[in-house]
């Protein structure tokens, strides 16, 4: 709905010190959403127009009066009232017309006045400007006034040409009734509608003259020759109007308001106001005493609100919940206090506020008046900051790696955090042993030191299970391991807690995910598992995109030195993997090969990309080519693949390069291996042709041959 600032000024004295921005803020705060603000007209008629999006529960706010009421409450300004009743110059209305309402449930109230001797012409400029500002096209003075009163007070009105209605003598009888089946009416929009029994119409003796609350009939409409008019002001049942308007696809300013509910107790005021304006603007004479039918009166209801409950429910401090201020604001909204009983106040709700029927509605009204900015932020359910105390990624890493390993066939183990000292020392080089943490009073020497790695415990489990004839043993454990700090931290220092709860600790405590594979497995199998664990967090190991590197610079003495690797992200070590050192295997009496890996949860968390950025993929077909090279054993796979980088602009069409088979056999010759490489080529902007693919592959083969001395198989 469009609201004119000049028009609002009729109701409120803004004292000029309120900018339209402040008014707009007030409207938003009251729940009357401002969609946009525009300047309208120039010079004296310059105006500011607010386009408001009024929620369907606020039928009362579909008028300037309604909006003014809200603003008065917000700014604590008085609402101006002005004379509504017309000067009555003509005879009695009931001598001209009478009303017959078929069912008071369909039409709560119906009131009319007759104005005689009107002269139909254009409206004065001020009137036309206000209508235009609000997006309504001026038509003629009578129609414009009915629209004006509607925008002013929210009451849709209709004017009939009195002389075109049927008469008994010189008296007309107006019926408000359901349409007869197949009755037809030609409407103001020149459309002829066939009516159903559910439709409510206004009729004279001869038939329908208007579709109640939606649109007037063409026959009885105001024309240039009209001299005498009947003004209708009514309150219809919302349901009928909505149904008919929807069925006929007719939504008018009038039906829009009636569908939401028009206050029956405002009917007369608006009728009088219209009559008054018509008398003022035209030469018409208003008949005395309106005729009306209002059988079932609508009385204001009383609703109680417990103040303390409201305050607590809304989370308001005692200071921002001032009973007197609230009651004053309620009065501005037309909500009067009627009684105070115990802790509850009872309010009389004006009949135009159809949305207030329960305590909770008043509580909502309270916060609308006080403002959401006064609500205390108290995070009862959840702390303000999720993952305030732990690293969110670490939780995800532990959870996802565990789930992946379980899906891969691993059993989760949990071991004691202490173990036998001489056993643990098997796993450490002599200079690392100083960092072991002894327990002063262990239960037994089996539990003498804190574990520096989860692997010894897991190997114990392998040994235990091998004794039970288990052949394939896949175990993993997630847990904290312990090492002494270089500089001992014997006294607590609370300041360190600010960064991380686990700071200010005596020991270095690191959370690990470790696993052992015992059975028919080999290094590549384990490496694949490790790579997948890392891929879960967007750490990549494929040749072209990799950010993970494997390096055989291990310090751990529990791995086979020739069959183990550190796992790096940049220069950060994430963990290690490899075959169990044969001497430990022997001293523990373990059978079959054992592979194992350990990953640091925190290091992965630091390495993993925080956000994933989507990269558009090529929609052109790709070509795959396989090449098998015969190479010397010394040539490492990584070196072989790296040679692709010697091709100029190889990234433009190379999508992937990977080894898919490695094969060794006496027939290949001594110290030789066959390495099969697969290349995937694809362009982002075209379909590759055979020649360029061939040329690319040939170039790669030439380089490999030249640099490695290898050949094609």
């Amino acid at each position, binding site marked *: 709905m469009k609201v004119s600032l000049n028009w609002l000024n009729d109701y409120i004295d803004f004292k000029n010190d309120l900018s339209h921005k402040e008014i707009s803020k007030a409207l938003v705060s009251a729940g009357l959403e401002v969609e946009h603000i525009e300047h309208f007209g120039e010079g004296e008629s310059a105006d500011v127009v607010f386009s408001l999006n009024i929620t369907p529960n606020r039928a009362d706010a579909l008028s300037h009066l309604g909006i003014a009421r809200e603003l008065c409450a917000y700014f604590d300004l008085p609402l101006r009232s002005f004379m509504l009743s017309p000067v009555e110059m003509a005879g009695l209305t009931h001598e001209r017309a009478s009303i017959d309402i078929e069912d008071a449930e369909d039409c709560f109230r119906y009131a009319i006045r007759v104005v005689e001797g009107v002269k139909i012409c254009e409206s004065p400029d001020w009137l036309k400007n206000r209508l235009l500002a609000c997006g309504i096209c001026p038509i003629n003075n009578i129609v414009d006034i009915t629209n004006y009163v509607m925008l002013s007070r929210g009451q849709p009105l209709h004017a009939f040409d009195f002389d075109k209605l049927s008469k008994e003598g010189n008296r007309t009888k107006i019926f408000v009734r359901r349409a007869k089946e197949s009755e037809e009416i030609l409407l103001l929009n020149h459309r002829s509608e066939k009516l159903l029994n559910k439709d409510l119409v206004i009729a004279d003796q001869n038939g329908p003259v208007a579709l109640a609350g939606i649109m007037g009939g063409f026959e009885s409409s105001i024309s240039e020759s009209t001299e005498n008019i009947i003004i209708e002001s009514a309150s219809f049942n919302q349901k009928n109007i909505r149904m008919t308007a929807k069925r006929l696809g007719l939504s008018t300013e009038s039906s829009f308001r009636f569908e939401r509910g028009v206050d029956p107790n405002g009917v007369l005021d608006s009728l009088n106001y219209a009559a008054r304006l018509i008398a003022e603007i035209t030469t018409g004479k208003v008949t005395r005493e309106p005729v009306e039918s209002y059988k079932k009166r609508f009385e204001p209801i009383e609703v109680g609100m417990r103040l303390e409950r409201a305050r607590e429910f809304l989370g308001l401090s005692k200071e921002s919940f001032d009973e007197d201020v609230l009651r004053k604001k309620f009065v501005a909204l037309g909500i009067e206090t009627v009684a105070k009983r115990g802790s509850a106040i009872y309010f009389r709700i004006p009949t135009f506020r159809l949305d207030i029927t329960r305590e909770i509605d008043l509580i909502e009204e309270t916060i609308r008046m006080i403002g959401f900015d006064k609500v205390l932020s108290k995070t009862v359910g959840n702390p303000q900051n999720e993952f305030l105390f732990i690293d969110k990624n670490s939780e995800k890493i532990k959870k996802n790696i565990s789930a992946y390993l379980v899906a891969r066939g691993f059993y989760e183990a949990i071991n004691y955090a202490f173990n036998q000292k001489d056993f643990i020392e098997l796993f450490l080089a002599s200079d690392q042993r100083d960092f072991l943490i002894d327990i002063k009073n262990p239960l037994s020497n089996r539990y003498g030191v804190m574990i520096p790695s989860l692997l010894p415990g897991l190997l114990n489990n392998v040994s235990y299970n091998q004794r039970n004839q288990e052949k394939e043993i896949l175990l993993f454990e997630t*847990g904290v391991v312990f090492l002494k700090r270089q500089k001992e931290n014997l006294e607590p220092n609370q300041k360190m807690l600010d960064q991380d709860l686990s700071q200010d600790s005596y020991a270095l405590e690191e959370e690990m995910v470790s696993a052992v594979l015992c059975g028919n497995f080999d290094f590549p199998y384990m490496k694949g598992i490790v790579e997948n664990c890392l891929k879960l967090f967007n750490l990549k190991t494929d040749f072209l995109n990799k950010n993970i590197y494997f390096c055989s610079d291990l310090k751990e003495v529990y791995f086979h030195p020739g069959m183990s690797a550190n796992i790096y992200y940049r220069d950060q070590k994430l963990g290690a993997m490899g075959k169990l050192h044969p001497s430990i295997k022997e001293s523990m009496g373990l059978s079959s090969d054992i592979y194992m890996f350990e990953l640091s949860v925190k290091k992965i968390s630091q390495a993993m990309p925080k956000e994933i950025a989507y990269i558009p993929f090529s929609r052109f077909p790709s070509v795959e080519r396989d090449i098998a090279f015969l190479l010397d054993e010394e040539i490492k796979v990584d070196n072989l693949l790296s040679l692709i980088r010697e091709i100029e602009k190889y990234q433009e069409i190379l999508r992937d390069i990977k080894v898919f088979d490695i094969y060794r056999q006496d027939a290949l010759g001594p110290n030789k291996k066959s390495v099969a490489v697969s290349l995937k080529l694809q362009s982002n902007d075209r379909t590759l042709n055979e020649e360029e693919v061939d040329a690319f592959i040939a170039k790669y083969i030439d380089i490999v041959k030249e640099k490695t001395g290898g050949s094609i198989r």
Partner: protein
Amino acid sequence: MGALDSLRALAWAELSSIKTKDELVLFKSRFLGKNGQLRQILASLGEMEIKDRILLGQGANKLKEELEEKIAQKQIDLANINEQTNLKEIIDITEPGLILAKGFSHPLSIIASEIFDCLSRLGFEKAQGPQIEHDFYNFEALNIPKDHPARDMQDTFYIEKNIMLRTHTSPVQIRAMLAKKVPPLKIMSFGRVFRKDEDVTHSPMFHQIEGLYVDEKVSLSDLKGTLETFVMSIFGKDASIRLRPSFFPFTEPSIEVDVSCFLCKNDLTCKICKGSGYIEILGAGMVDPEVFHACNYDSERYSGFAFGLGIERIAMLKFGISDIRLFFENDLRFLHQF
């Protein structure tokens, strides 16, 4: 006319012998295609007399329509036959599925994550602290001064004079309160704890989970509601709780919480509750003002509750495990049951 008739006879003969969709496609193009036989006949129209031309033209159109109709019908027939043959295949669904590797989570992890889920729905946030603790966090700040008899309740492993393996997860509460200087605070902490004890129901290392909620106006009723929700979530919606006065140095009042026995209904021979109808599962209470003082919280303005329980005990109750040591042997025959 003769040409059309013989073409028709030829087409019908061929059509009846067609067995596959591909054959039908070929047939269609041979007879109706651009260079199909019907076209060839029509191409000869030009050399004919006008009367014959009309006759032949009409005949050819008729044949074309007939052919199209028959081909469409044949298509449907072939599809039906095809479907019938496909549906004739039957497999023995009792043959075993491919045996793929499948691992198992540890029963303690399963219980712990059930409890995490429940507590996070209640708004508790995870917090974590070290397992080797300072005396201050593990005891002193929790209102367990040196030489206090309460220290005997928790026989402790020492690393240094004032450094120990934490005996409960409560030091995480202290750390969290000191780190977050202003409430509200709603945390849960989980992890290994250590006490010098070893028998069928006690293990020198076990796991605790603990909850702490501090805010203005936190009352005993918040604690009770939380515990009820928690217990129902873990033991089922028929479970109820019984609160008993107890003593913990860091809570006042202190409460021992029993859950109604899920196995029996006051059966005196019940192995789990021994006829009492209740099982002791956790300790709880309202945070003692002394603890708040140690953490610089105003105990007049703020109040809070805490509760803690042992994961092993819950797992033993829920899975019917009688020896706590089974959890740490990591016997595959044990682990694969969960």
